[in-house]
């Protein structure tokens, strides 16, 4: 019975991925590509990915942007509101390590300074295919941070 239940949970978690999106001082490029991933051409809902309005409903936190000081605390707050098990995906060069903005005075070097990141998706911005690929990589169980979507970087 116990194994059936855990099997059911595993099965469900791989097929139902609710994401919440935080823009931590991004240029919009990554954000519109995340939205594009939900629209008809890419249609992430096929795979059970859904954009939810509240972090309390979310499984995966998508973070884009350079993480400026004002957003740092907000990001932590949002992360704390998420129920376990939760994952964080850093999307785009800025969220990975500051990107082109690296030496601006109001910019951090990647969001992993604020929240633990499970997966990095590089690109400026990554294409919608890369974003979907990355999220799938996350739920199909790769324990280590993986540079997902290397083949799709746009």
């Amino acid at each position, binding site marked *: 019975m116990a194994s059936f239940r855990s099997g*059911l*949970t595993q*099965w*469900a*978690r791989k*097929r*139902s991925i*609710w994401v919440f999106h935080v823009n931590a001082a991004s240029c919009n490029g990554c954000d519109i590509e995340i939205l594009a991933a939900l*629209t*008809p051409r890419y*249609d992430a*809902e*096929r*795979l*059970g990915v859904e954009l*939810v*309005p*509240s972090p*309390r*409903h979310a*499984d995966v936190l998508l973070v884009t942007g350079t993480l400026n000081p004002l957003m740092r605390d907000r990001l932590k707050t949002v992360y704390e*509101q998420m*129920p*376990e*098990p939760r994952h964080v995906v850093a999307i785009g060069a800025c969220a990975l390590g500051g990107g082109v903005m690296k030496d601006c005075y109001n910019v951090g070097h990647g969001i992993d300074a604020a929240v633990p990141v499970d997966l990095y998706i590089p690109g400026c911005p990554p294409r919608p295919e890369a974003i979907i690929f990355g999220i799938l990589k996350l739920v199909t169980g790769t324990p280590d941070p993986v540079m997902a979507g290397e083949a799709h970087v746009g």
Partner: protein
Amino acid sequence: MTPVQLAELLLFPGLTFFVWLAFLFEWLERKTAARMQGRLGPVVAGPFGILQPVADFFKLASKEEIVPSESDPFVLRWGPALYFAAPAIGIAFIPVLGYQSVLYHPLDLLFMFFVLGFSTLMAGLLGYASAGRYATIAMGRLVVQYTSYEVPLLISMVTPAVLAGSLSLQGVAQAQAPLWYIFLAPMAFAVFILASLAELEKPPFDIPSASTEIVGGWMTEFSGNALAYVKLTKNLSYVFLSALAVTLFLGGAGGPVLTADSDVQALAYVCYFLLKLFAVGFLIFAIKTGLARVRIDQAAKVFWTVVTPLSLAQLALVILLR
């Protein structure tokens, strides 16, 4: 209560049957919306993604449940169960096997009024108990919306009862054997569907749960198990209201008698019922997908100045013609 009755109540055509229907309805809803929007919709969970709502449910149930510090933990814990109970009891009165329902009372139509009101009341209570700001705003909207749609909803439900001269769902369904009431009282049917959209918080009346305005509405603070049940209840209410529409306006499970064998005929009745149920369901999907959200004051205005007079006119017409 005999074991057979208990099985009917819990398994078929009672709770379990309707819970699976609720999952199926959510899948159909999402799939219809996706197809209308030029997308595929869920495909990976089960064949054609049919198990997507099930996956969502079990995933949510397996997650951590966060109780916000300002909220009322008791209500938050037991409220979803009560919220779930409302449509779960309501569906037991719906005649599915021919004109027989699992539970029956000569005045059970009146009980339906109570079930519908109770479900909204619980939604408000849950929102209030979770003590979020967005939930509080959502509650205000919920109350305004409730006061606007409840009157036309009840009047539109009374209209078939007047036509049938009966206050039980079985009686109303049976009285429609010669002619469905959708033909005798089309306006009442239209009013019922509109009010159902408001009761279910679907566009254009998804005002209390408008995600782009007030985050998740009264559901903002819910997570894990509680959210799973709240979402399931919303889908169950969806099925429940569609089933009510079938019973009150589309002749219930009634249809041509095919054989003398009562067991086979019962199966035919279930098929009739499901066909009509999906027809009503699709009508609601289509309206919902094709419309934008209105504002709360606009919704109230529409209900008070157009829908309520319409339902009253229909009722008066029915009484005069009878």
